[in-house]
């Protein structure tokens, strides 16, 4: 039979199942296939903190959402066009975000009475009318997978673990995604286990064939390639991009890369990624704790490395005393905080932007540190590269803020030409005759980086206050004032190098949205929608949170209303109000997920046309 093919601009689907069902992997492979098919994509991996939460329960549901389209994709999507539910809990946890008439693909093998009860259903949802508004497609994935490998003599638990490939193959058929990228990946992944490779590939193909022959869908869907800039692309997550940004900055500065880090969700993947790049001389040190993570990096920076440390909020708290040392000792260092929900241990696997105060203000003493934030997964590369550049150019620690959504989310990345990345200058000093630790660069006020091992430049540094002229320990009041002023001036001067702040939309007028970090995508998507409705608003997205851009005050004063949406309780809004004579409207959500486009759109509608 010939099925119809329905063209769509963009589609949002979610794979949901138990934490052990391989949903993250399935979603990642579907995303890669979509990217290779030429779509723009944005993803939202959403998984519990427990490695294997009780099977079949709502607490154990692991989801992976991907939005792909022929148009620019800014967010992982507000609502689902299709939901793949590997068990009743996966269905129940996500039904509220499925569009009316959306597609549900169910694994019937998991809809046994016990599983239905574990998900909190009193009766099987397939018979109680709750799914009537949707197109339900029932597939016994376990049975189909078993049939595909029946002659291989595999034990049943191995066969059971291939059912996610059945779902993936089926969804690839439904949305015309190529299987080759997944087959290549399986082949690499199970290179030494040929039997597993064959089983997974067979089941993947079986899922695809089942879509083709079983006539379970009314139509297939076609999403044409997006009109992306020409060039070579890859798919990249925020954590990968941070790691690559650091390696590139090391190569372009000529300083060996050192990472001191303690494992913490959701930052650990940066450590994993860099540990694999020893070929590039990268030294990764898995420290005994968060404090040793930053302190070892400070030691490596003292020795002349491009030193970085990676963490998340609770680890950042532990590092704060050492950050003061890096400020006082004037050593280049990049601290990456992949933010997650707080306070305390909080929501380890969920995203949030609530460490902005901590980054900007959270240290003893008057201890300014520049803070920059990435806005999308691939932007983490540029942000990290810039953070390394500032650290080296100004001889100071720099905090880079990303978050759980950026860290694990993926998008297509126009691969930069390594040869075109700017060289990063350093203050490494070689000439002993002209060396003095207090002889500052006239422009940046950076001190010379006199590396141990260089004859004739022996000197001492430390955390005690020092004399501005001699570098010796000094407790005098006027000198402390001068040194404090100097530390502030050194940070303030960074703002001179910023490009003029870009305003998307009108340069003055009614409503201005000021955003930072990962809310960029949601805000962009909402503004595009509002413009479609005839409401024009201005948008400034801040990369630099400290020091703030010098032209920001004037921009803010040109609008009647300033709206700041944040995944916190109003931290940037507070900083803006503390810095500029401006009243700020706030939109705050801390629900462990990125903003929905619709939430920001509603705020735009509410605040547009307001008089000051």
């Amino acid at each position: 039979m010939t099925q119809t093919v329905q063209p769509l601009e963009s589609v949002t689907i979610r794979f949901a199942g138990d934490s052990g069902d391989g949903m993250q992997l399935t979603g990642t492979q579907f995303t890669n296939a979509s990217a290779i098919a030429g779509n723009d994509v944005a993803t939202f991996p959403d998984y519990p903190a427990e490695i294997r939460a009780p099977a079949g329960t709502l607490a154990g549901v692991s989801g992976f959402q991907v939005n792909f389209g022929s148009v620019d994709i800014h967010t992982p999507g507000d609502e689902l066009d299709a939901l793949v539910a590997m068990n009743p809990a996966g269905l129940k946890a996500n039904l509220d975000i499925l569009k009316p008439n959306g597609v549900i693909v169910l694994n019937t093998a998991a809809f046994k009475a016990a599983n239905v009860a574990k998900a909190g259903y009193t009766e099987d949802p397939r018979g109680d009318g709750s799914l009537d508004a949707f197109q339900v497609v029932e597939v016994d994935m376990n049975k189909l997978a078993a049939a595909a490998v029946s002659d291989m003599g595999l034990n049943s638990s191995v066969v059971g673990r291939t059912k996610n490939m059945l779902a993936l193959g089926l969804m690839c058929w439904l949305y015309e995604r190529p299987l080759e990228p997944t087959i290549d990946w399986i082949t690499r992944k199970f290179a030494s286990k040929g039997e597993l490779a064959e089983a997974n590939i067979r089941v993947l193909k079986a899922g695809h064939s089942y879509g083709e022959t079983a006539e379970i869908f009314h139509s297939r869907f076609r999403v044409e390639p997006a009109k992306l800039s020409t060039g070579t692309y890859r798919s990249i997550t925020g954590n990968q991009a941070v790691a690559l940004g650091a390696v590139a900055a090391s190569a372009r500065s000529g300083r060996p890369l050192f990472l001191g880090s303690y494992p913490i969700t959701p930052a650990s993947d940066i450590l994993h990624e860099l540990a694999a790049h020893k070929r590039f001389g990268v030294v990764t040190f898995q420290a005994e704790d968060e404090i040793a993570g930053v302190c070892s990096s400070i030691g490596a920076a003292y020795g002349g490395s491009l030193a970085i440390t990676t963490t998340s909020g609770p680890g950042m708290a532990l590092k704060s005393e050492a950050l003061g040392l890096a400020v006082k000792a004037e050593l280049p260092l990049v601290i990456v905080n992949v933010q997650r929900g707080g306070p305390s241990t909080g929501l380890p696997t969920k995203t949030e932007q609530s460490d902005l105060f901590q980054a900007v203000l959270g240290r003893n003493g008057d201890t300014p540190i520049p803070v920059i934030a990435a806005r999308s997964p691939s932007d983490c590369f540029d942000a990290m590269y810039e953070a390394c550049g500032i650290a080296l150019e100004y001889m100071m620690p720099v905090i880079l803020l990303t978050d759980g959504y950026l860290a694990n989310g993926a998008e297509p990345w126009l691969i930069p030409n390594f040869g075109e990345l700017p060289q990063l200058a350093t203050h490494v000093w070689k000439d002993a005759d002209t060396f003095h630790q207090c002889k500052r660069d006239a422009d940046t006020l950076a001190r010379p980086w006199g590396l141990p091992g260089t004859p004739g430049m022996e000197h001492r540094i430390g955390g005690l206050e020092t004399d501005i002229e001699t570098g010796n320990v000094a407790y005098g009041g006027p000198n402390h004032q001068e040194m404090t002023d100097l530390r502030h001036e050194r940070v303030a001067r960074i703002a001179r190098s910023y490009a003029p702040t870009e305003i998307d939309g009108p340069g003055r007028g009614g409503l201005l949205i000021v955003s930072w970090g990962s809310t960029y995508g949601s805000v962009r998507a909402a503004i595009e929608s509002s413009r479609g409705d005839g409401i024009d608003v201005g948008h400034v997205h801040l990369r630099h949170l400290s020091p703030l851009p010098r032209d920001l005050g004037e921009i803010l004063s040109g609008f009647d209303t300033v709206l700041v949406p944040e995944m916190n309780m109003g931290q940037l809004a507070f900083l803006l109000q503390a810095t500029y004579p401006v009243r700020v409207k706030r939109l705050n959500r801390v629900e462990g997920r990125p903003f929905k486009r619709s939430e920001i759109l509603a705020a735009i509608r509410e605040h547009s046309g307001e008089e000051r």
Partner: protein
Amino acid sequence: MSGQVAESATLTKKDFVSDQEVRWCPGCGDYSILSQIQKVLPELGVPKERYAFVSGIGCSSRFPYYMNTYGFHTIHGRAAAVATGLKTARPDLSVWVITGDGDGLSIGGNHLIHAIRRNIDLKIVLFNNRIYGLTKGQFSPTSEVGKITKSTPYGSIEEPFNPVFLALACNATFVARTIDREPKHMQQVLRRAAEHKGVAFVEVLQNCSVFNDGAFENITDKKVKKEQQLLLEHGRPMRFGPGGEKGIRMRDLTPEVVTLGEGGIAEDDLLVHDEAAPEPTLALLLARLGFPVYPTPIGVLRAVDSMPYDRAVHEKIAEIQKSAGPVGDAAMQELLSGRATWDVE
């Protein structure tokens, strides 16, 4: 390299004295430690610029300011962690950690044990005065039970750490103990520590003349020291006493003080020191000896060879670089591109 060695051979103690006024209290044991290190370093054949001294916080941690070498006075307890980063990034340097019983064993205990566990090639000198000096006299993790201090007016109830026992429990490859008022012995021990390839942990029994004066008097005083110190010498039977008439022998698993000649006890009956024993059993046993039942062992308790962490890190990198081929712009481009790419035309 030979040129540098020749140059360093002309170094003297003066080359290691900085222009900073030393600000320890009069009579502090730290002066002696500073002086012995300044005497030993010129003799090691290491160019002066290769030395880096890293310290934490406390009286002892002011040490780097007084050394005319590279130096980094860091934050409380973290010297071992900072030094670990420095040495891992720069294995060519001779990195010394100066710490105290509070800095190294209390706030910095975690970093100390892990640095030792990794066998990173740091020279860790722990000044043990059994008191918090810089905060003006609270009990420390090495203070004895019953110690009266400002924070224990009714006497401390805490069991103290035994620094060398702790280091050995971390499987330290070099462990020694020396005394501030025994300059020649300290020089020998420091020289041995410097020459050791791997982590070297040296406890210096150090007198705080203001807050804990005489803490080691019962071991170090001239009148009692021959009776109370067991000078360890590799391969030699363990004898002590004014005329070497006493010794240590084992009864089952318990060491016993004996007098030679009494009850037919001969030198052959005594324990023989073996600092190079592959297992730390003997060293651990020695570490437990001390006042008042036993003489206190002084000298090298353990010195065994094992791959230093920093060298292993760089050997692994070199091995991978050798098999992966040269790193240039093409390799960097390959890294950025990853495995799966697609073109948009």
